[in-house]
């Protein structure tokens, strides 16, 4: 047993712990089609539910006649708000402190809104039933523009709020106004703006888009009337919170509800919210006594489940003539659609939009956000983003470029002279955050050198000269972005969702033979938790990662946690994992000392064992220690070897990165070609480089889609114009660029293993890099700003409007 021939390095390699590109354990089942997603679940007698949806964006529901539908073979029930009302379930609370109709209660507020729920023996019969339900509507005036929604005579959308001059986040000043959220020093900022050498001003719109995971949302609800237990399998990014919310709104005791998130086919924020489909499936199961499945179609998903962004950000940035930024002002109009169903920590109605000072040392700043109701779908979720960080990063990275134009400066240099310096961390931002760590100059210089920035600028200048000389019709744009994220929500003292503190958890049990199982309060949606969290444990307690099973998503077995979104799994649950492992290691040390007959302090941890200090040949492996924990009566110690940790982080983590995009643009067609995309990420300690790289590729591709074509668009009547994948742009392998990844490592000082989280960085950082590249190409011709998405048509229009088509 005493394998002294192995060097510590050999033993460490065998563990497959932190820092190695361990292959994913999930892939063996996924690559052969043996995943278990919600739609794969089938139960005896299972029924299928589907929605009648509103064809109108704003209308009164005059009547709903389900008689014909009930005659359709296979249809068993048609549920409307009238049936839900006695249960108090015709409306439900949103995560943002508002309430939302489960089924249309007298009126509809957006096209695609859920009006009735048809329950049938299979999906085809349910669809027939949906077609047979007759609904009479009385159309109302529609408002899709958030600025028009705030005009005095705008149509009243939320009649249920009549007379309520105070909402969940303070005063409401208009019938379509939801909240005003203010941060920073308005007076001081405006004084700086008034006296500044230079003030650049711009309206930056981050358009409405959608997370659109490849698997849509769905669930199977099963009420067991014999034992009174409700089980719901669903696409839930936060299963424990769903259980608590389900208990609070249904009145079913929490111990009688079991929520299970099986394999999830991508989430990206879309699966954080609670949707009418879940409630209706649960009610249908209670009514029929049978399991009921609801799985939305792609069109349902794009029309009705949570959208993202839709922020109109008006900015003013002040600087000295030399380019030192002296102040930042921002007013945002946030279009929330018919209900405020944003998924943000309760005290942050505009999420972490106040990270909008970005990577820069800005002495004074002010931010105000006004939330507005319109006749669009509700949502405003964080699409691969920590609560509006994407909007904030896009805003500041566009404002920097606009300022560079005003100053006539190189945008890379402007960033460099304004970065927060390494010696300023921990850094207190003007809008209230304490940045834990960073080294922006090092990352920036590394990035510029890696892409050959000066040579690129020279090539770009030559191309411009050639263009002007009529030798080419293609321009080069160099898109720069340096982003700072704020992830890992969060300290319970200021972050909660519906009153639930945003800690997270891990429970580890070591089996007698030295293998282990760990359970977490999070849930993977493709991030590879079963692979990476086992690596943390392997490094912390010296059990091979391959000997550790990892489970998440079952509220009956996993410890309580707030789930996976906002890049919080590694910063919060990853920390809990390390802390639980350290509790086990502490007990293992006592067991080892007992077995080696020395004092606790005389043994030390060595990769996969405890050895006597100064006598490394005397040791007990973790395997031996585990067995001893179960078969030896050790004085003063309980048998067994397990631990649980609930981790409340002292601060958020602040990953950052430098992204550079080189793009060629055809002036006559508006088409683009991404010649290079370089992504440098600093996510602190790196657990699995292969998975980090994969996250960057995927997030940057989402960013590419958003910047270059993806949008949720409505016409003036509130008709949804992008409800299929024909119209809603998701890049294929053909147009997706090639990515070069790089990194620096600045560990988080407060995280047990120094990790910061990375999943969302590439979406946050890539959108401004792509967008800035488009703008940069046209900068010599006077373009200051143009709204995304930069699809071929819009880019062609930029060229036309600048008179470049001759």
């Amino acid at each position, binding site marked *: 047993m005493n394998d002294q021939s192995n060097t510590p390095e050999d033993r460490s390699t065998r563990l497959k712990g932190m820092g190695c590109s361990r*292959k994913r354990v999930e892939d063996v089942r996924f690559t052969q*089609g043996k995943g278990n997603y919600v739609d794969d679940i089938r139960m005896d007698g299972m029924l299928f539910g589907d929605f009648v949806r509103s064809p109108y964006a704003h209308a009164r529901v005059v009547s709903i006649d389900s008689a014909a539908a009930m005659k359709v*073979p296979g249809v068993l029930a048609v549920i409307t708000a009238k049936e839900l009302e006695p249960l108090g379930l015709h409306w439900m609370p949103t995560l943002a402190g508002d309430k939302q109709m489960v089924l249309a209660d007298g009126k509809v507020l957006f096209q695609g809104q859920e009006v009735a729920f048809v329950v049938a023996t*299979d999906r085809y019969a349910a669809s027939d039933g949906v077609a047979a339900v007759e609904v009479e509507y009385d159309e109302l005036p529609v408002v899709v523009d958030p600025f028009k929604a705030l005009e005095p005579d705008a149509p009243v959308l939320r009649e249920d709020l009549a007379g309520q001059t105070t909402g969940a986040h303070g005063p409401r000043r208009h019938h379509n106004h939801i909240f005003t959220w203010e941060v920073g020093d308005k007076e001081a900022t405006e004084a700086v703006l008034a006296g500044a050498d230079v003030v650049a001003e711009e309206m930056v719109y981050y358009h409405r888009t959608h997370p659109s995971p490849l698997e849509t949302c769905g669930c199977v609800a099963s009420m067991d009337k014999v034992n009174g237990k409700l089980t719901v399998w669903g696409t839930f990014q936060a299963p424990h919170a769903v259980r608590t919310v389900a208990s609070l709104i249904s009145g079913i005791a929490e111990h009688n509800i079991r929520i299970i998130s099986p*394999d999830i086919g991508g989430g990206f924020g879309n699966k954080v919210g609670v949707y009418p489909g879940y409630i209706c499936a649960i009610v249908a199961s209670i009514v029929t006594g049978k399991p009921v499945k609801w799985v939305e179609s792609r069109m349902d998903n794009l029309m009705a489940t949570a959208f993202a962004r839709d922020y109109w950000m008006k900015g003013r940035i002040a600087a000295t003539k030399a380019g030192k930024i002296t102040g930042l002002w921002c007013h945002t109009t946030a279009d929330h659609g018919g209900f405020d169903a944003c998924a943000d920590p309760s005290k942050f109605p505009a999420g972490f939009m106040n990270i909008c000072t970005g990577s820069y040392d800005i002495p004074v700043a002010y931010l105000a956000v006004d939330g507005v109701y319109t006749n669009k779908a509700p949502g405003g979720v964080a699409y691969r983003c920590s609560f509006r960080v994407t909007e904030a990063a896009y805003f500041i990275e566009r404002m920097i470029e606009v300022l560079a134009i005003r100053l006539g400066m190189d945008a890379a240099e402007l960033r460099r002279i304004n970065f927060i310096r390494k010696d300023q961390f921990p850094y207190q931002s003007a809008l209230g955050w304490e940045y834990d760590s960073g080294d922006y100059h090092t990352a920036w210089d590394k990035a510029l050198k890696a892409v050959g920035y000066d040579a690129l600028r020279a090539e770009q200048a030559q191309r411009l000269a050639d263009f002007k000389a009529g030798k080419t019709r293609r321009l080069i744009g160099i898109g720069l972005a340096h982003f700072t994220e704020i992830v890992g929500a969060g300290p319970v003292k200021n972050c909660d969702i519906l009153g639930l503190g945003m800690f997270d958890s891990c429970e580890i049990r070591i089996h007698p033979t030295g293998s282990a199982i760990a359970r977490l309060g999070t849930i993977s949606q493709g991030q590879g938790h079963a692979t990476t969290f086992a690596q943390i444990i392997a490094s912390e307690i010296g059990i091979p990662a391959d000997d550790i099973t990892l489970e998440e998503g079952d509220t009956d077995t996993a410890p309580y946690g707030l789930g996976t979104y906002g890049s919080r799994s590694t910063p919060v649950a990853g920390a809990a994992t390390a802390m639980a492992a350290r509790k086990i290691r502490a007990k293992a040390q006592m067991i080892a000392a007992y077995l080696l007959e020395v004092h606790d302090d005389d043994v030390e941890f060595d990769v996969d064992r405890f050895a006597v200090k100064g006598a490394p040949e005397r040791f007990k492996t973790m395997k031996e220690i585990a067995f001893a924990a179960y078969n030896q009566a050790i004085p003063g110690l309980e048998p067994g070897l397990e631990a649980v940790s609930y981790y409340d982080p002292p601060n958020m983590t602040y990953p950052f990165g430098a992204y550079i995009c080189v793009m060629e643009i055809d002036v006559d067609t508006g088409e683009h070609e991404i010649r290079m995309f370089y992504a440098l990420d600093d996510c602190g300690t790196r657990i699995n480089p292969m998975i980090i790289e*994969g996250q960057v590729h995927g997030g940057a591709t*989402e960013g590419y889609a958003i910047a270059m074509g993806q949008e949720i668009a409505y016409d003036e009547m509130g008709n949804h114009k992008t409800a299929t*994948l024909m119209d809603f742009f998701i890049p294929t392998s053909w147009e*997706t660029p090639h990515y070069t990844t790089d990194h620096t490592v600045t560990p988080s000082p407060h995280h047990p293993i120094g990790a910061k989280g990375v999943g969302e960085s590439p979406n946050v950082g890539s959108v401004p890099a792509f967008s800035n590249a488009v703008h940069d190409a046209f900068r010599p011709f006077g373009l200051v700003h143009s709204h995304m998405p930069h699809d071929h048509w819009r880019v062609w229009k930029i060229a036309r409007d600048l008179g470049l088509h001759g």
Partner: protein
Amino acid sequence: MSKMHITLTVNGTAVEGLAEPRTLLIHFLRETLRITGPHIGCETSHCGACTIDMNGKSVKSCTVFVGQAQGAEITTVEGLVNADGSLGVIQENFREHHGLQCGFCTPGMITRAHRFLQENPAPTEAEVRFGMAGNLCRCTGYQNIVKAILASAAQLNAAKEAAE
């Protein structure tokens, strides 16, 4: 609605079942035959999660009526494992090169790659990207999928050469 008697060969096994003529092949595979590898991502032929191999061609099974598949030879991702139950070459390379994350597109992606590499056994990277463009992935940005397919091509060709 009266039902049709459907007979198919799926992954080398003769199977049969009853289905309404309007039933989509993907629903017949998933719900009647319980072959749940192929997934449903859009029901409009855009995403390719439901891709299967039917009579030697890649087919999006969400836009085929089951009656159109009468008597067909079908291969799904489940049929691409080796006889001993180990992962097939393409499956193994997707794992090796991190060509998947959430796994939802993976069955369709691998089944398409299986057919693509028979159509073009020695593709360039650009040909892989073009040949795989009917299958959407939201997680990986395709870079590692392309890598996995190119690695598979090399291995399959080396194996073929060795056999000859």
